[in-house]
């Protein structure tokens, strides 16, 4: 289709698409390509980086963080900023899952989804209906969860004698099931966000809360539904973590809060809301895992890895902000 055809078929959309066709490559694309080239160059000069085993390690480590990052993406898109409770919620999920697994696998999954999804839905409702500050309310929720877990478990490890835990540790060929779960969940979430009424509502609320209110959307319900989905995704990540460690405690979540947000932000989601994509978050999770792996192979300790991750997030935040071309304030 020529540019003229595009313009004549549908003026508004077509002009934008036509401009994209004739425009030179954007600087943010150039930065992304440059980053990729740097990683490839460093990878080529790092022993054991370009091996099948290492690439499998990268994909595996990206998968569990990535599942939580998909939840972070939904929260970012709906304008809920970030959940500071991701690690605590994943730990809670692992504890509930492992703790109830002796009943049956199905009961454990449903209970875990109900507990963590319910908690997240409540947080989402507070944020949507009352515009409670998401950062503060999720920090409070993380602290509450920690207190609750300490009281109920007395700080002890939660274990199970059930062999059902192995279901989540299985491999298809040499690939762990968590990788397939990540792929399926990313595609499902992408389709839900782009092709359903629910997805359009999530984007509308995130893009312009007041417009969504005027349009008659019930903000409490919409944001609660987004948080419910995020809670279930976080619960799945927590269940995988519980399965890997074969027991559960408050420490299971580790740095998941910031790892998940890092993957979503590197994937181009905006803290201002209304922008984000499940498939780009998939790419973001892979990018963050690749950088961490590269640093590990080059002998940097976990502190250096986390530090670089923070700087990468800062760079991504600045790039996404500049690309959006808008100042937030007067």
């Amino acid at each position, binding site marked *: 289709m020529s540019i003229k055809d595009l313009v004549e078929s549908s003026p508004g959309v077509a002009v934008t698409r036509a401009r994209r066709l004739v425009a030179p490559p954007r600087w943010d694309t150039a930065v992304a390509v440059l980053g990729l080239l740097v990683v490839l160059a460093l990878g080529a000069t790092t022993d054991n980086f370009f091996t099948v085993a290492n690439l499998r390690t990268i994909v595996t480590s990206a998968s569990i963080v990535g599942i939580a990052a998909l939840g972070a993406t939904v929260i970012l898109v709906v304008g809920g*900023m*970030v959940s*500071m409770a991701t690690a605590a919620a994943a730990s809670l999920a692992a504890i509930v899952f492992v703790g109830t697994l002796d009943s049956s696998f199905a009961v454990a999954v449903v209970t875990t989804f109900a507990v963590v999804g319910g908690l997240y839905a409540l947080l989402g409702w*507070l944020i949507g*209906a*009352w*515009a*409670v*500050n998401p*950062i*503060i*309310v999720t*920090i*409070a*929720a*993380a*602290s*509450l969860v*920690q*207190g*609750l877990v*300490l*009281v109920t478990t007395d700080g002890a490890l939660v274990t199970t004698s059930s062999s059902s835990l192995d279901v989540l540790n299985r491999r298809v060929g040499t690939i762990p099931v968590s990788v397939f779960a990540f792929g399926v969940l990313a595609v499902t979430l992408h389709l839900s966000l782009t092709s359903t009424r629910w997805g359009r509502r999530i984007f509308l609320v995130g893009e312009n809360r007041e417009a969504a209110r005027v349009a008659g959307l019930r*903000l409490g319900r919409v944001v609660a539904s987004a948080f419910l989905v995020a809670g279930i995704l976080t619960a799945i990540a927590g269940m995988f973590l519980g399965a890997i460690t074969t027991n559960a405690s408050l420490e299971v979540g580790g*740095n998941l809060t*910031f790892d998940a*947000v*890092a993957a979503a*932000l590197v994937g181009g989601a905006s*803290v*201002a809301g209304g922008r984000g994509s499940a498939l780009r978050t998939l790419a973001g999770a892979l990018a963050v895992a690749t950088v961490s792996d590269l640093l590990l192979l080059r002998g940097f*300790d*976990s*502190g*250096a*890895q*986390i*530090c*670089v*991750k*923070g*700087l990468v*997030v*800062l760079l991504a*935040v*600045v790039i996404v*902000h*500049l690309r959006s071309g808008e*100042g*937030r*304030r*007067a």
Partner: protein
Amino acid sequence: MNRLHLRQDVTIPAVVLAVTAVAFFVSPAISGATLTSFSVFNVFQQLAWLAPLTLALGITLMCGEFDLSVAGIAPLAAVLAIRFGDESPYVGAAAALGVGLVIGLVQGVLVSRLQISSVPVTMATYIALTGGTLWASGNQILSYDNSDVALWITKPVMTVLSPGTLIAGALALAIGLAMGLTTWGRDSRAVGSDRRAARASGVRVDAVLVLAFTSSGALAACSGVLLSFSTASANPNPDIKTLVLAVVAALAGGATLKGGRGRVVGILAGALAICFLQAIFSVNALEDSLSQFLFATLLLAVAAADAPDLARSVSRLTSARIPTGEPS
């Protein structure tokens, strides 16, 4: 505004402080625990590091921003103070303060110049600092060999105070005077209330924001230095509980998440109130998890009370229930 807001900014924290102080002094009589002057001394020892951290958060809250990185700057400063303080504590403190200042300055420039939300910027900084602190400490708790410093900074002064408390008080006094005697405080609240109007009325918004984040970084570093010197150790792992305490203290001290509110004296009162509240649990030998519950619930309650749309929901509910008096 200002008389009503001044009253709210100072009176509410004063009431909160009075209630918690009374609870602190009365609760041992109910539980049968013993209250000594050392219990009060401990309250002020905690205030020595919590007050600068709460002020750090409060100053950015006044401007309508939220500086999450204070929870990362304080542990980094604690580690640096010990790493560089082998020969002289002044060198360690200067290194920590310098790093805090620079981090705050960079964040302030990013937030003001790029007009970018402070939450993702300070969160990214927090992540980077968490890693940087682990790196700098070798992923272990550091102990400070110069025990003379710890002995001096925790030496009782007038029974319940210490040099550490007095340093924190002097810092708060200096910030309070600077905000009260210059346009800094007024401009910060103006920027937090309505940034567009503040800019239109001649307030140098960018400079105010850079100053807020730079001060925040320096105060958070002071908090880390005072804590590490008083305990002669530095824990590189940030604790969410510390952040919860500082946020609750700032909000109890009259700052709001919407910005445009708060005074140094109120924030200081909020920090002292939280120290009293925390001490109630230790004096009465209550479970630590209970205090975590309490502070998380308080934070949730304060955040909900501060929510912009809560008032709208309540008024809609009220107007739906109150009959209008029109003829049926």
